[in-house]
Each structure stands twice: as C-alpha cells, then as structure tokens.
C-alpha cells in the first residue's frame, strides 16, 4: 500500500495510434490506489505542461510506433530544461528494442517497460522508484 496518494499522468506519445497498453496500465495503477490522469495523444511540450498543471509525480508515456527515441528523449530533456525533472519520475513503455531501452535509460528515464511487463512489475517498479526518488 502506498503512503501518499501518488498522482500519475499518462499519455500516448506523439501521434501513436495504439492505446490498449497505456489504458491497461492506467487501470493497473488506479487499482493500486494511485490517482491517474490520461491525456491521450500528446507531444512532449504538452505532456510537460499537463504534468505541471496536474502536479503529477509520475509521468508515463506509451510508444509502440517507433518514435520512442526521438520523442522520448525529447520529453526528458525538456523536463530537465524546465527544471521539473528532479521531482518527478519518468517512465516509458511499449515496443522498444533492448538497445533503445538502454539509450532511454541513459537519457534519463527512470524505467522502461517493454511488452510482456506484468502488472506486478509495473506497479512495484513505479512505487519503488517513487519512494526512492521523491519520498527521501
């Protein structure tokens, strides 16, 4: 059980057409007691704006279309520029090859979830990173 009500902002990255994954994760996180806001298709700048407006702790983006490196890295670098990176957790999920997952980690994502990631893994990872990064 979570000590604080974690607020999660979820988005489909850019123009990606897929939403089954992100909606599935939305339900996992809400069932785990987190507050979840889903803003649909959004570009990095819109995600940052919404994260600030909603005061989200966790920002999660979904990408199955292949734009994870370009837009994903863009999101994190913009977050750093805006000065909101340190107090928030950034995660990404989708159809992401292993090499690219490494690059996304280097770019600053706290965790990458590829297809096959289970509910347990997603919920516990996010909770642990949140506690490690933000509660300290």
């Amino acid at each position, binding site marked *: 059980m979570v000590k604080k009500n974690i607020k999660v902002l979820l988005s*489909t990255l850019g*123009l990606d057409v897929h*939403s089954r994954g992100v*909606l599935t994760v939305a339900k996992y996180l809400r069932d785990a007691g987190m507050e979840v806001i889903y803003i649909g298709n959004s*570009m990095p700048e819109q995600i940052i704006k919404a994260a600030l407006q909603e005061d989200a702790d966790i920002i999660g983006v979904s990408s199955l279309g*292949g734009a994870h490196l370009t837009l994903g890295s863009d999101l994190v670098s913009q977050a750093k520029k805006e000065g909101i990176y340190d107090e928030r957790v950034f995660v990404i999920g989708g159809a*992401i*090859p292993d090499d690219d997952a490494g690059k996304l980690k280097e770019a600053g994502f706290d965790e990458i979830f590829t297809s096959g990631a289970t*509910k347990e893994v997603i919920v516990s990872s996010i909770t642990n990173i949140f506690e490690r990064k933000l509660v300290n």
Partner: protein
Amino acid sequence: MDKNKETTREIINKNADKNKGKPLFSRVALDAIKKEFDKWKSSNVREYDRNNWAVTPQTMLGSGIPREMIYSPLNISDLDYMSDLGNSGQAPFTRGIHPNMYRGKKFTIRQINGFGGPEDTNERLKFMIKNGATGLSVIFDIPTVQMYDSDDPISRGQVGTSGVAIDSSSDMDILFKDIPLEDITISIVTHYPSNTAILFPMFLAAAERRGIPWEKLRGSVQNDITLEEVVRSGPEYIPPRDCFRIQCDNVEFIRKNVPNWNFITLNGYNLRDYGTSSITEMAVAIANGIQTIETLILRGYEVDWIAKRLAFFWSISNDFFDEVARIRAARRLWYKIMKYKFNAKDPRSMWMRCHVQTSGITLTRQEPLNNIVRAALQALSATLGGAQSLHVDSYDEAYSVPTEESALISLRTQQIIQSETAVTEVVDPLGGSYYVEALTNDIEKRILDEVSEIEKLGGYVQAIERGWIHRKVANYFHSEQAKIEAGDIKIVGHNCYKSSYKTPPIDVFKYPQGAEERQKEKLAKLKESRNSKKVEKALKNLEQACRSDTNIVPYSVECARHGCTEGEIFKVFKKAYGLWKPPVFF
C-alpha cells in the same frame, strides 16, 4: 436506422428452413448412435470427464465458446448438406466462394510493407516481389495515418515510423516507381474513411500521370469508420456521422470510377487486436457492412452493383478450429444477409471475400522465434478456413517493423503451406467434421446475435456515437488482461514454461536515417513549384463539397492533381465537420 424495424436476425430466421428437408443423417442411425453414445458416456468415460464435458478454452481474443470432449453426428443432427453447406462456389458458400478454391488460385501472399520515405519502401516492395509476394500491401507512417504533413510540428520525430511517409501525390510516384501497377494487386492500407479520401486520390492521380486507366487498377483500401473512430488513438477526430458519410462517398466513387478496386475491407483485424472476441470482431464488421449497403441503396444504387467489391479483413488468433469455423460461419452468414435481407441476385454479391492477418497481440517479446510457430499455425488455420489473401506477422512484432529476414520468413511460411503441405489441394478439408460443423453453426448464431444488439441500438454508427463499442472493447481487454495475469490464458514463455535461459538477441530493424528531412525538403519544393491559386481553389471546392450532399471524392482527386498535401486536405475536413471526442474507458 429505425430501432423498431425488423432486425437482420429476424429476417434470416424467417428464411431458415428454406431449402431444408434432406437431413444427412437418418433418424434410425441417429437414434442408434444416441443409444450407444449414452451407454459409452456412462460406462467408458471417466466421471471427471463426464462432469467437465464442456470446457471453454482460454485463449487470446477467443470466442468464449465451450467445447465438448468429443463431437459426433448428434451435434449436427439436422445437417442438410446442400442447404447448410453446399458445394464450394455454391450457396450458401460455407465451403468456399469458388468451386476450385486454391486449385484455381492460391491465396495471395500479401505482406504489409512501409517505413521511412517512399524511396525506402519502394526498395522493400521490390524485395518482396522478387522473393515471391504475389500481392502488395503498403502501410503509412504515423503522421500520414493521422493525416498530418511531415513538416507539421506534430509530426516531429515520427516521420517514417511504422510505415511510409506520404505527403502528396508525387510521393506516390516515388513509392511505386518501376512497380507494374496494372499487373499486381495492391492493398493501400488507408485505414480510415478520411485518409482513404485523401491518399487514394493521390494514388489515382499518380496512375493518371503514368497513363494507366483507372479500370486497370486492382487492389483494396480499408476505408473503415471502425479504425478512425474506435480503434485508433489520435489527437483529432471528425464526428462519426461525417466519417461514415466519407466512407460511403469513397465506396460510391470507387465503385463508379475504379471498378476493379475493393472499396472497403471491413474491419475486423484492428478492432480485434485492440481487444475483442472473434465474435464481436465479425459482428461489428458485418453491422458496418449492412449499414454501408443500406446507405448506398438509399443513394439510389442496386445492391448487386454495390456488393461485389465489398471485402473483409479478419484477425487470426490461436484457437485453431475456432478460426477455421468462423471464416466458414462468416461466409454462410454473409450469404444469408445478402440473399434474404438485401435480395441480392448476383452470386458475386454474396461472397464473403476476405484478407486475413495473423494476430499481432498474440506474439511475445520473450523468445521471439516462438512467434514463427505461432504465426505459422495461425496461417494454417486461415488456409483451412479458405481466406483469399494473407499477411503473416513477423517474429519481431514486439520490437519493430520487420527486417528483410523476418519478412522473408513470413513469405516462406505461406510458401511452405502452399507448396509442401498439400493442404491447398483439397477444398474445405475440414468440412464435414462434426466438431467444425457444430462450431460453425454456433459461431454463426452468436455473430448474428451481436449484430442484432448493434441494430437494436440504432445501427453501427449510433453504437460508435454512444460509446457502446468503445466500452465493450475496453471491458474485453481489461478482463482479458486479468486472465493473462492469472495465468488462465496461457502464453508460453511469458506466464508458463518461463525460462531463465536467455535467447540470443535478434536483429531489430533500424529505420533509415533522414526521412523527415527529405520529406520536408520535398514539401518545400512542392509548395514552390505548384500553382497556389489552383491549390487554394481546389481546397475551397472540397470544403464546399464537404458542407453539401455531393460526393467529396472527385474534389479530393482535384486537390491531389494540383499538389495539395494531406495535412491541407485534413484541415478542410476538420473545418467543415468540426471535432469529436471519443470516450475513453479504463
């Protein structure tokens, strides 16, 4: 659609006993079999099996239909061969739409291709033809699918991903360079009515420039409201009614002007993979088909003129016999709908022609080579079901678009089925199986029941507007996910037979560099060289058409001829129709 009018199911049930009267199994034989069966069941069969006689397989995207331990003539006791099955190419077409099926024409090997800019995909198309693809299929990148130009800020970082970038008609020239458009059938995967009305005219204008008359073109477009308004996630939608109007405009225009082109491939695949059962997939596509035909009839056309170029697109998942039976069920059901509801006279109007794709969501990221087996089994069931053309998903589905190697294996899967297994030598080989015939009957009934549900809501477009179908799909995939988490739906390597053995990493496709820059350069040059007065006028005329009752497609063709971009045309749709927000459920 009038909620109080007769449903399709009522019409079909009224005609159910037509031509019946020659049951295959004699009463005497059935009685004797029943006596022995009951004896066998009580004395030979274990108590546990008796008590668990019917089990429901838990599979991805499955039908949820319980299966008995064994099937016999008792399960299909009133089967009338000529009335329920017929011979192949004969009403009710259960056994196939042609007498000779694959002896006459093997299923088309039609793999999807698309990545980078048109010059990149052109290379892959040639590679596929060289290695035995018998039909082409082209899919568009995310910005093109969503109808934004490559130089639109919203397309940044996504140009050329998941498909090929097409911004204007001149990109079509590059995409199909050196490809004999008159000699090969092409599926242009324009998912939506809106992007069909934009991209297909661009293709037509390109054919025109090459001097190819439109009557010589053969292939398909998707043109399905399900994709635009239900399945896709996108930043902007036009209202369902306007989307459906465009769907019908596309049907009307293409039927008139490109007579050998399939103007719609009712979905089907994408809806199911998004998350729904094999039954709902078919009910939705059929309800959509019914409403489309009804609308075209209201526009003054004869059903036999409309229906012969209508086609379907199914997903093929793992429940092997379910997949075979449902293709047969859809054939018989479509025949009945065309004959009894629409009074079609031409047999061609009654054929349920289909392209199929093996299900993407059934493939795993772990142990990816296992996916070759999954896809092969799915392809085999589609073959036994009698599909007209196939796309076999590649094993790297969970990673990226296919490499040449993985695309080649998908080709080979189909070639092996066709050349080595002898499965295609006999028509409808599973026909007559007590199990398959019983399942075919059951599936047909369930599909028709769901079609009725949709009709009672006022029709398919209404079902979309009210969020009914969105909610149904969300409920389905959330509950399916719970079953996977619980291990009820078994996925080898994921939730059962998990191994700490690390399979060697696979080669993953790397998108070619520079597609975005190249497209932007081309767009800049295009905007300089085209006649901006003509562009403006064409867009204005298109907007006028959108706001009136006239068919919008000829105006879109004019736009294509003058070098309008996709983004410019989509802006016109948005301006004319306004925006709609679909419901989201989680």
